[in-house]
């Protein structure tokens, strides 16, 4: 993985010193909250319902054991013993004290971590496929390019006060596990006719109150031009993005209002000015960065899971293998997903002890590499197949052995009214109820892969628009209600879910989900027809009727 050189270290240390000084000036009263807000946001510090929240960047979701241990230490020392992994592959601490923040940041800097640009109207942490550099279906490991984008966007002086936040996602595989089409810019690797690898650039995707699937802006941008192209997009956005209304300030609105063709024209005209200039990425520079991401010393083997036998001898473990492992590019290896969605638990949370235990596994079994997925799970990317059983046992002992990845209880859930000042409704308790309802392994097995996503308000941090079933908290005359959507898809076939009808109360939600699932199970042509396929075959009507009757 990427390691800081002296340069990065100096950069981050400088940033810590700068923000520490700003905090001091805030505490002394020299800075007003209005003046402090954008500064703290750019350093990942939010003011939440009850306290400050510190969001720490995990660039493109990659960490080592020392970093995870440091996060455990911070959870233990400065917080209430846990951290929350987010859909942006970051980790949030919910209870730090303002005057502890400089200390936390300098401890993070010791392990090459920071909170720079995890919020604020700037270019946020770049996210990617959690299986990057490991997945069998990958065209290219996107992390070197993600790292280059991270460097380019770090404290970019021109793009620090954009109209609104800006999110970039990148994937090197044809199967999109990073929801790139729900990002301001989504990059997908592609091989052109000449066999060269470049990037298809999508623009203007996003969740929020105006969900949009990103549109294709350019089907092939070579490596060398990528930064120049990104800078062109950002400049057009910085200059012409709306600033009069914060709900219309994302780039998706600019693209919609200008029209894709005219937006493209503006980007191309800017690109024609900057292309070939100082931002061109030399091949040897790319190669230099690539060496940081060189594959570990794999010992290929022909080890494989004998699932048929396992299902008889060790059914629980077999289930873990089926759901929580992902095919690796190298023979004899697999990627293991650690579910942070225990039945009835808080999705995405991990305690300090759990983090320490995972850190040990990372070190022993995964070449000291860990990933955070945008679905709020952790991933050991490179585990020898022969070691998976040991990993599984250790996880079970730590309460992390849930074999539900991709299943109905593996939900993406935002913090909601329990933490978030913007929330209309709770999301965590709703998720916990659903999780209990569908908790049995047998039931989940029967249903198969089904993605439920829950947001506590229209800001859609829980990606409900992209859930096969989405749940959105709304508020009506003082009561918390939930709207149900179906048909969302965050994969390469990105689609936005449709609302089925009026909102229902929290108590009604588990039953409602149950009824939707029953419609699906009753109507699917076979166990291999997915929820989305059944839905598109039947249309929404039977689902709507199951919820509301015929009225």
């Amino acid at each position, binding site marked *: 993985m990427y390691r800081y050189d002296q340069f990065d270290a100096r950069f981050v240390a400088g940033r810590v*010193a700068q923000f520490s000084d700003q905090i001091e000036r805030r505490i002394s009263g020299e800075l007003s909250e209005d003046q402090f807000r*954008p*500064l703290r946001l750019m350093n990942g510090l939010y003011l939440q319902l009850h306290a400050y929240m510190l969001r720490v960047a995990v660039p493109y979701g990659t960490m080592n054991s020392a970093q995870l241990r440091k996060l455990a230490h911070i959870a233990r020392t400065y917080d209430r013993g846990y951290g929350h992994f987010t859909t942006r592959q970051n980790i949030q601490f919910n209870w730090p004290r303002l005057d502890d923040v400089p200390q936390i940041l300098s401890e993070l800097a010791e392990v090459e971590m920071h909170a720079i640009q995890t919020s604020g*109207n700037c270019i946020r942490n770049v996210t990617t496929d959690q299986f990057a550099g490991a997945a069998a279906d990958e065209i290219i490991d996107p992390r070197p390019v993600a790292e280059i984008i991270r*460097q380019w966007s770090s404290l970019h002086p*021109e793009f620090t*006060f954009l109209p609104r936040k800006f999110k970039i996602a990148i994937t090197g595989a044809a199967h999109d596990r990073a929801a790139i089409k729900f990002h301001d810019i989504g990059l997908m690797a592609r091989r052109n006719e000449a066999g060269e690898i470049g990037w298809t650039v999508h623009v203007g995707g996003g969740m929020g109150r105006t969900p949009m699937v990103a549109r294709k802006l350019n089907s092939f941008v070579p490596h060398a031009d990528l930064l120049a192209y990104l800078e062109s997009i950002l400049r057009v956005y910085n*200059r012409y993005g709306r600033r009069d209304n914060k709900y219309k300030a994302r780039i998706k609105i600019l693209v919609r209002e200008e029209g894709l063709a005219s937006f493209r024209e503006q980007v191309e005209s800017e690109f024609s000015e900057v292309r070939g200039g100082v931002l061109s990425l030399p091949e040897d520079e790319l190669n230099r960065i690539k060496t940081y991401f060189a594959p570990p010393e794999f010992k290929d083997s022909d080890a494989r899971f004998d699932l048929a036998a396992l299902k008889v001898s060790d059914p629980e473990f077999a289930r873990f293998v089926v759901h929580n492992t992902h095919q690796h590019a190298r023979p004899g290896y697999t990627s293991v997903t650690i579910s942070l969605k225990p039945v009835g638990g808080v999705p995405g949370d991990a305690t300090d002890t759990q983090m320490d235990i995972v850190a040990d596994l990372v070190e022993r079994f995964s070449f000291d590499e860990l990933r955070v997925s945008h679905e709020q799970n952790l991933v050991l990317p490179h585990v020898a197949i022969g070691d998976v059983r040991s990993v599984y046992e250790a996880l079970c002992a730590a309460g992390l052995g849930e074999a539900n990845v991709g299943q109905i209880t593996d939900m993406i859930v935002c913090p909601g009214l329990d933490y978030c000042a913007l929330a209309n409704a709770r999301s965590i308790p709703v998720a916990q109820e659903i999780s209990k309802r569908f908790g049995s392994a047998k039931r989940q097995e029967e249903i198969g892969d089904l993605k439920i996503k829950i947001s506590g308000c229209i800001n859609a941090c829980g990606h409900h628009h992209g859930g096969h079933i989405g749940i959105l908290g709304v508020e009506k005359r003082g009561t918390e209600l939930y709207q149900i959507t179906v048909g969302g898809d965050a994969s390469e076939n990105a689609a936005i879910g449709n609302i089925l009808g009026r909102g229902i109360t929290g108590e009604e939600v588990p039953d409602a989900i149950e009824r939707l699932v029953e419609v699906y199970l009753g109507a699917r042509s076979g166990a291999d027809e997915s929820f989305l396929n059944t839905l598109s075959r039947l249309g929404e009507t039977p689902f709507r009727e199951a919820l509301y009757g015929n009225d």
Partner: protein
Amino acid sequence: MEMIEHSSHTDAARRAGGESWLAAFGIMALNSMFGQKDASGVLRMAIEDLLVDDLAVVSSFGADSAVLLHMVCAINPDLPVLFLQTGRHFDQTLAYVKTLSDRLGLTNVQTLVPDSDQLARFDPDADLWKSDPDSCCHIRKTEPLDKALSGFGGWVTGRKRHQTQERGVLSHFELTDDKRIKVNPLAYWDEEDVAAYKKVHNLPEHPLFGSGFTSIGCAPCTSAVTTGEGARAGRWRGLNKTECGIHFDVNKRISPAMAKAELTLFRDGRFVADPWGKWVEGPAPSEARYAHVPLAQFVANRTAYLAGPHPLGLLVGAGDNVEEVASDLSRFSSIAIEFRTFTDGRGYSSARLLVERMGYKGELRAVGDVLVDQIPLMRRCGINAFVVGHAATRKALEQGVQSAIDVFMQPVGVDEIPLGTRCFLRRANHSNS
């Protein structure tokens, strides 16, 4: 001697040199550039660099006037010399105007006369000086001079510190309330310096000088001084009046010495007085001077602004497209980028386009919501001057704020170019001052 009304210069071509110099100057710096007695140096700077074709000398053709006019002739005998013909001068003075002009070779003496309507209304019997000398001076001196000076960016006076108590803080260069530069080459000269200069250069004296008139104005208001009195003691004798109005600012004080003026512009590592005024709607484009014209205004009257004779600035608002003035940049001595709120980042793009794409090299100032935490970002985008109102920001700049971050992760600006073997994106910050 011809009697003409002053007409403003329109020859834009002659401006070229001074403008670019002006774009880089700070008036504080000017005042520390010259030795106290280096009157010629001050004058040369003003005539040849600072206010090229935008400068006039105001002379009373009084007792000491020969000194300054002699120096002017040595540099440029064609420089406009404004003489206020109040109508109340001694005949000897009017004769001396001619003697001195001929002797020195002044080619451009312009006589300013009071408005006849005003005289008829307020001073029909020519005795206003008795009852209300301030108003008399106003009609006969201040108004004609103001009118004439509106065509100039600055003017030269012969005032000296030693003359009166109020003039004791005079410096070489001052900024007046209406943003003109007042040049006082003789600020630090005393009577002996003047006498010695006259002697060395064998300058003709004012006819009355020998008769005890050491400072000579209008006949009714000037009397001879006796030994031991100050040189100007004979002016408005018996009245609590020491200045005639042309050296007052609107508050009836002598315009403040620059050292005391408000220093709001930060550039080149320190605060200096801002020679640029606020843009006001109204004056014709040809009259615009030392103000930042809003971009839309400029574009709508491009030809007139381009032809205008005075130093001009441009105000780039947040939503403005700098591309529209790409070919006009050489006209501006200063460009101001407006940050209406510090969270509006459009100005960073405008700055980069001006500097990096269009090659603008002059003063690029941030105005509006300029706060210390944004200044390092602004600098990287090419902004080199800051108009600062926020007290804490001011303090930080005075203390020489340094960004804690001294390395860059991406190349921005014209001098952040790739350095050899380093990662192509990154380099140490070497312009953090």
